[in-house]
């Protein structure tokens, strides 16, 4: 089985990029004064996720979080998984790229993570550092 990096190179040569119609808004409870962050799925990664046969299982990334820096990691050598839907891919991405403190461990009352259509992200960045996840299902500045 090939290394993940080699599979990514092969997939990029074969698959057209897919721009996701979703963004993920989140607030990090460990940084209460920080504004809401916006996670943008990568188009080449999304194409690989939808095609299947490229990306490793998400649990390999989760186990690799506990591997000390500089030690061998599991995810580059894991058997690739099959095709995902876009919604499944976003869920995978949340677990991979957003701290577990946001999507797993948070017990507070505020809603701090939300998947939204691209159109709901404000294009006016004048007050970017005041963005919060609105508790009425909208992001406001």
């Amino acid at each position, binding site marked *: 089985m090939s290394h993940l990096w080699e599979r990514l190179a092969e997939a990029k040569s074969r698959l057209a990029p897919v721009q996701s119609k979703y963004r993920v808004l989140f607030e990090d409870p460990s940084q209460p004064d920080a504004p809401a*962050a916006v996670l*943008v799925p*990568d188009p080449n990664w999304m194409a690989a996720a939808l095609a299947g046969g490229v990306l490793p299982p998400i649990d390999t990334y989760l186990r690799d979080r506990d591997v000390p*820096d500089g030690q061998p990691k599991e995810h580059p050598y894991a058997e690739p998984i099959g095709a995902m839907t876009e919604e499944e891919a976003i869920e995978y991405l949340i677990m*991979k790229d957003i701290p577990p403190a946001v999507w797993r461990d948070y017990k507070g009352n505020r809603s701090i993570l939300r998947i939204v259509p691209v159109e709901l992200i404000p294009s006016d*960045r004048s007050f970017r550092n005041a963005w919060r996840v609105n508790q009425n299902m909208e992001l406001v500045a």
Partner: protein
Amino acid sequence: MSTLNVSNITDGTTTVGTSYVVNGSAKAWVNFNQSSSVGINHSFNVSSWTDGSTGRATTNLTNAMAASEQPCSASATTLSSGSTNYSNGAYMDAASAIKFERESASGSAHDTNNVSVLANGDLA
């Protein structure tokens, strides 16, 4: 996919080991906008990009680097339409995350288009 299994590459005069080529190539790269049209333009080995705040962003890698002390760099225009110049910087926050920062000389964070981030070094 075909595979060439060779230990050296030559042009007839100069010969280099293929390990130099592999080790010297960029392991991840991305070009993104952090302005009104937030998004990724071009990339390789990137799973997502996080817009953290004005002038602050994180590039998340699909295949992590071997360790967090790997070389990386970022570039974007340093010019503004006024008298302010900007500096851009990048560092690896973890083996799979590259932080990007852009500020003026006075320390004010600033957004811009056409930011490029590269990572070199060893893969996990």
